[in-house]
């Protein structure tokens, strides 16, 4: 049960509260560049969600099996050259950035080839965005967050497992899609507006993005309210603020959903 709560919290936090684009500012380039039409924005969002999920699997496996001190694979390989004691101390985390970026670049390349060969219609809808994604900050950012939650924890038992990493990445991608599609919808309407000439293009997009970020700040606190509502302890407390009430309502909805 605890695990499920954890997963739900990670998902909501990644998709809404700490939205990748509007809270962490990663993936701003496509957010400004490809958000001109809704269908293109949706294609971009799907491509990012797809690649980010693959990258999460890769980075979790690489970090757990190769990079962290005493990782099984690196220990096994080092065991051929070093004593068992020295091999257990091998710490490759310093190489993490180079390895991640290399893994992402090659994964994108392979995915592009695979999709083009076996799913031509899918390739037509979002394949064109795939090569662009290699240098998308959102992907590397997800990898780094997963690494921080494996390497950065004090207690090895708290390190994230594959499920948590996957949920973080997939819902981060969903959050990116939500943000970019909303943005594209607004920009389609914005074309009909009388925007002052110096502000046309990027400037007005950023200002609208700021207002959007402001709106997404309204989700702050949903996670703590949700946690309170989902924990097995009785939560018969007086609802203090409308914010917490909203969170509780959302928690009830998600609870009833999970029951069904």
């Amino acid at each position: 049960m605890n695990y499920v709560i954890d997963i739900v919290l990670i998902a909501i936090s990644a998709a809404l509260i700490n939205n990748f684009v509007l809270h962490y500012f990663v993936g701003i380039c496509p957010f400004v560049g490809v958000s001109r039409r809704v269908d293109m924005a949706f294609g971009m969002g799907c491509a990012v969600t797809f690649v980010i999920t693959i990258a999460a699997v890769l980075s979790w496996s690489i970090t757990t099996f190769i990079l962290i001190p005493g990782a099984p694979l690196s220990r096994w390989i080092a065991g051929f050259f070093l004593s068992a004691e020295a091999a257990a101390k091998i710490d490759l985390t310093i190489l993490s950035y180079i390895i991640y970026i290399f893994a992402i670049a090659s994964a994108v390349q392979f995915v592009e080839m695979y999709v083009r060969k076996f799913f031509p219609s899918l390739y037509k809808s979002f394949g064109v965005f795939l090569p662009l994604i290699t240098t998308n900050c959102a992907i590397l950012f997800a990898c780094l967050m997963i690494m921080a939650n494996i390497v950065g924890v004090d207690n090895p038992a708290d390190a994230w497992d594959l499920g948590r990493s996957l949920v973080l990445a997939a819902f981060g991608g969903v959050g990116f899609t939500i943000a970019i599609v909303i943005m594209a919808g607004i920009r389609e309407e914005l074309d009909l507006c009388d925007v002052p000439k110096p502000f046309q293009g990027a400037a007005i997009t950023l200002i609208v993005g700021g207002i959007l970020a402001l709106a997404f700040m309204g989700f702050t606190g949903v996670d703590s309210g949700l946690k309170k509502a989902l924990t097995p302890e009785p939560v018969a407390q007086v609802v203090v603020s409308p914010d917490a009430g909203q969170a509780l309502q959302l928690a009830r909805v998600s609870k009833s959903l999970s029951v069904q």
Partner: protein
Amino acid sequence: MERTIKKMADQPTTTERFIQGILPENPVYRQLLGLCATLAVTNNMKSALTMGGAVAFVLVCANVITSLMRNLLKPHLRIVIFTLTIATFVTIADRFLAAYMYQMSKTLGPYIPLIIVNCIIICRCEVCASKQPVITAAADAVGQSIGFTLAMASLAAVREILGTGMFFGLRVLPVAWPDWVIMVLPPGAFLTFGILLGTLNWIDSLRAAGSGKK
């Protein structure tokens, strides 16, 4: 991008490249590159300048190395090589910050490794360093990083002063100033950058109109 291509066509000199990076081709305000870092770490001057320094280090080193090996590059592998070169220097910068400015490296967090995918650096490697001799590439990198740092500093100054009433942690506005907390939060970054960008465009169009009349 069009400007960049045009620039390639008439091959500016080394000095021109250096100056172009600072204002006429400013990476942030003109080319809209490297926005992640620009928006994320500009809620106070100190972190903005540290980030500017880190980017400058990586940019100059990556440009010099790329320029040194420009004759060995294979066209289809060049982006991978650029990225790996950049990743190496970013690792160095990250370790350095963690060793000597621990608090700052905690504050900047994932944005230091995200320099790897900062488009400014890959763009400069591709556009300039892979075709020019070392001196030109280095001058270009220095110019671009000065431009980047200036842009970050301008954003950070606005955000820090309006958001907390302080500048470099020293109070500049009276205590009675109601802090615009929104300025140091994420939406403030978008709003400030959008307004500064629009204002700069406006000044530009005024100047263009002025010179057109003459």
